[in-house]
């Protein structure tokens, strides 16, 4: 059992509060830094892709997990980020400014989508974002002078101060560094006033208004922030795929992002990262398992989609709090070891809300 003994308020909101946390995250950092020299080149490349999807998933988590706004169109922000970045690199903009500008450009798109989208919520919001995604893909397909249309657009290798970052190791570190920066920034935002306002808007708009939170402004901010982070991931994704075509950013990609945040556990950054890891490594896992299965099953078309669906259904049924929820339960079990109460996390019925007004 662990009891906090804080002598200052700032002790209670430090990021790493306990020695064991510091040791665990220090070890994780060491492993991540050493990994490119220990693992195969293929695996390092694969990990860079996982990091990119982690950033995208973090972006969606801010919007869906923290602010409660569903988006089925986040692939469009990945696309805008990717194409914007590729185009700017082609115009001779250096790597880091181009990455930042791609993120800002997506944030502007997020603002543009956010203003009309916040007028609706729930299912209708999902439809609006879906429509946005369809329009964005269409525009990218038609605007051949900038995007190359359906013939595609080649992406220049990332270079910084004359060094190429296109190799698997260098690109791995670029993605890792940006993931850490994004993660720290979001951690800071979400434990400050802005993050609390997000949660307030998600859990009760009526109460948020009564506390002086400008609900519409908070929602639009969440849209812009989420789009910006996702756009940054899109810019990195451009380097990963090296060649952009509009059909890489379909509804399936948006759905995978939604799966990541839901399976990871809504309302937790750890969940976003765990979910992204699971979903992005799942195809590799499935292809590893395939040879072990009988031919009649392994040759079936749509295996991956089936397994994605199965996993989502199982999580929704048995663990709505996602992987993060599982993790918290496991941790509580270990921390309280001989004294763990079996029904600590038993789900109870919610109190009825009969008077929800906007």
């Amino acid at each position, binding site marked *: 059992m662990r009891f906090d003994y804080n002598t200052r308020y700032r002790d209670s909101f430090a990021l790493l509060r306990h020695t064991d946390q510091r040791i665990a995250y220090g070890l994780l950092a060491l492993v991540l830094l050493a990994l490119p020299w220990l693992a195969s080149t293929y695996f390092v490349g694969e990990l860079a892709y996982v990091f990119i999807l982690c950033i995208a998933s973090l972006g969606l988590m801010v919007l869906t997990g923290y602010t409660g706004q569903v988006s089925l169109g986040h692939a469009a922000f990945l696309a805008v980020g990717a194409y914007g970045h590729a185009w700017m690199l082609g115009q001779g903009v250096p790597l880091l400014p181009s990455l930042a500008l791609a993120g800002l450009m997506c944030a502007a798109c997020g603002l543009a989508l956010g203003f009309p989208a916040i007028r609706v919520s729930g299912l209708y919001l999902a439809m609006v974002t879906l429509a946005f995604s369809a329009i964005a893909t269409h525009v990218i397909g038609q605007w051949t002078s900038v995007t190359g249309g359906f013939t595609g657009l080649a992406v220049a290798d990332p270079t910084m101060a004359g060094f190429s970052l296109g190799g698997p190791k260098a690109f791995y570190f670029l993605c890792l560094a940006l993931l850490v920066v994004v993660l720290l920034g979001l951690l800071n935002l979400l434990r400050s006033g802005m993050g609390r*306002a997000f949660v*307030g808007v998600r859990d009760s708009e009526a109460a948020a208004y009564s506390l002086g939170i400008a609900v519409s402004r908070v929602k639009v901010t969440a849209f812009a922030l989420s789009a910006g982070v996702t756009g940054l991931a899109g810019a990195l994704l451009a380097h990963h795929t090296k060649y952009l075509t509009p059909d890489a950013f379909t509804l399936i990609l948006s759905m995978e992002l939604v799966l990541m945040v839901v399976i990871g556990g809504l309302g937790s950054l750890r969940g976003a990262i765990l979910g992204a890891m699971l979903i992005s490594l799942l195809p590799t896992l499935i292809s590893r398992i395939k040879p072990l299965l009988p031919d009649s099953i392994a040759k079936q078309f749509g295996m991956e989609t089936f397994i994605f669906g199965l996993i989502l259904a199982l999580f929704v049924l048995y663990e709505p709090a996602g992987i993060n929820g599982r993790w918290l339960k496991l941790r509580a079990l270990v921390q309280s070891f001989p004294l763990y109460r079996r029904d600590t996390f038993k789900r109870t019925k919610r109190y009825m809300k009969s008077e929800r007004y906007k």
Partner: protein
Amino acid sequence: MTAIPQPAAMLEVRDLALSFGGVQAIRQLAFDVFPGEVLAIIGPNGAGKTSVLNTVTRVFDASRGSIRFDGQELTGVQRHAVAALGIARTFQNIELFEAATVIDNLLLGRHRFGQGAWWQQLLRTPAVTRIEESSRAAVEEVIEFLDLSPWRNTLVAGLPYGVRKVVELGRALATGPRLLFLDEPASGLNPEETRRLGFWIDDIRSDLGITVVMVEHDMSLVSAVSDRVICMAQGELLATGSAREVQNHPLVISAYLGS
């Protein structure tokens, strides 16, 4: 002998009307709230009590009439700007942030005092840490006032109903209001919790100097803490006066029991 001068009203409601299509929730309502008093609004179901509260806190737009708070017209103020004027409220069906801890719920009450610029929050500058610490100190005062310390880091979703009611009261207090609206604060509480609530309301008025307007059905609480009582029925004012006067008013009796 001169009469004791009446203090200027803090909240003046005049000629207020609210209709939803053909339904008139409030018609021709006028009343005053004086600084330093506890005013109770009673009335049968559907009398328009909560609608009055919702109109003052800008959830609904009044169809007609004026609401002045410290001389400032409220009917044109944006809904989220009401808190900045020093008006706080609780809700009939608890509206807490369920997936957040008690401390985060209370800290959200401090939102109106500023949280630092977005880039300061992003970088977690020392200024933001100081703001967080001072918000935390203010919230700890509320926690102490309402005896919430056992629940400080508990998620609201895991709290019993009675505690949630207190947390919601605490969140309203954390906004540092001058005028506090309580919408049925005692509903769902047991007699002991109701009595504790009565003491708190008294302390909120006397020690914290906050004017309280409460919509309440529990007449034992109303008679224990309120200075003045307003009775409404069908959107209109029936009677005002002390709890005893209102309870014995013939119109009030006929509204509750039928004539």
